[in-house]
């Protein structure tokens, strides 16, 4: 969840772990490269290799529930994909096995496995980013690397507003329940029951936004002489950026080349 304190505050530590000396942009480029590698070839062995690399990275950094939640949802989808493509994929020819008279085809299963592997590669590598970078670290780094502080503010304030909104929602829901609820059977009834919660919530949220906006202006957020907080140092970030970007360009180029030549 986003309310996770470690995500929000980014606990200050004296001795930094190996994944904390890698800067966020390098991690994002790494996600991009892994995704491109996974799309570069339909070879299943390569996919398994990439999944292994990502899993090892996760195991050696830290594991938490966020990755498992993301995995849970996609695993369900991958299973339905295996069933649908295994049964109905348009290039299906060879029957692999039959269950209760229903035949599963080899081509469809391979196709679905490949898509599933790609999804897993993306989720696991992004999982590495999610568990190893804190929101405040991202904010400081993004500003350091030249993004305007206004954009950084917009991006980062979401993470602080959400827990507050969830609290407001629970309060409003309780208040509406005390007043009594209507039956909620049909879709229309259910949608109507959403309104008494959503309208006060939206108005409250926008009201708080107005207050925030006015206080930002009063504190001189637009002041050109703003001082920037100095951020921590990272190892080899420049070299890593260049090589990872180079790899990404190479992979895209190779993919286009093989597409043009019909390989």
């Amino acid at each position, binding site marked *: 969840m986003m309310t996770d304190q470690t995500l929000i505050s980014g606990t200050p530590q004296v001795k930094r772990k190996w994944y904390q000396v890698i800067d966020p942009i390098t991690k994002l480029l790494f996600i991009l490269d892994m995704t491109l590698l996974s799309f570069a070839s339909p070879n299943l062995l390569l996919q398994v290799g990439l999944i292994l690399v990502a899993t090892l990275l996760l195991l050696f950094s830290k594991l938490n529930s966020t990755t498992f939640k993301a995995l849970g949802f996609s695993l369900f989808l991958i299973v339905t*994909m295996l069933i649908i493509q295994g049964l109905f994929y348009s290039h299906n020819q060879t029957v692999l096995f039959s269950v209760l008279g229903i035949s599963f085809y080899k081509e469809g299963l391979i196709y679905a496995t490949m898509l599933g592997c790609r999804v897993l590669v993306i989720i696991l590598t992004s999982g590495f980013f999610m568990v190893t970078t804190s929101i405040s670290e991202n904010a400081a780094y993004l500003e350091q690397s030249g993004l305007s502080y206004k954009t950084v503010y917009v991006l980062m304030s979401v993470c602080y507003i959400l827990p507050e909104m969830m609290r407001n929602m629970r309060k409003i829901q309780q208040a509406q329940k005390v007043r009594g609820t209507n039956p909620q059977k049909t879709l229309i009834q259910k949608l109507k029951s959403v309104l008494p919660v959503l309208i006060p919530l939206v108005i409250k949220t926008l009201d708080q936004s107005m207050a925030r906006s006015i206080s930002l202006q009063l504190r001189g*957020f637009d002041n050109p002489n703003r001082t920037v907080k100095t951020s921590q140092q990272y190892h080899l970030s420049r070299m890593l950026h260049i090589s990872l970007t180079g790899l990404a360009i190479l992979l895209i180029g190779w993919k286009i080349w093989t597409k043009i030549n019909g390989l």
Partner: protein
Amino acid sequence: MKTEPIHRTSMWKFKLSAATMTLIPAAVGINYVAKALAEGLKLPVWLGSLGTFLASMLAGPVAGAISGFINNVIYGLTLSPISTVYAITSIGIGIAVGVLHANGWFSSARRVFVSAIIIAIVSAVISTPLNVIFWGGQTGIAWGDSLFAVMVANHAPVWLASFTDEFVLDILDKVCVAYLAFFIYRQLPQRMVHFFRDDK
């Protein structure tokens, strides 16, 4: 006190003012909470674009598009990584809502219905290629996917099956969200509407 006449600037003109800067995170929050509410009530719709709709209606297509984009990026980096690529869909939705609203297509209940259909088409057209690339054409919603399975089993092209799958889900979702946004927008205090519209 001298009052200046209100002069409405072009809807495409965009400045990241303090008002928009706080509206965008709020819109992302509304998206998130509405989605959580829909999941809690087991509604067959997502409602996850309500905030994007409201941001577009309040501050124009650019603000809506940015809200949609940031929504998916944040969602992708914290909960489900694949949803990051659907940021393109959210940008499309934000622009469509903003343009329709600026041209008066959110002024009456009947017009809202037409808007909802247009927005659903925009959303489905952008999402379908993404569904095909990442999920072989599926959407992950059970009854939409069973429709997809039936069509593929009857040798319909994957693109058509995937578009139908996405479109039936989108039309239901966007009609619900459009009416919710329409009702909520009408309940908003006028000072709020003017504040975020940034009339000068």
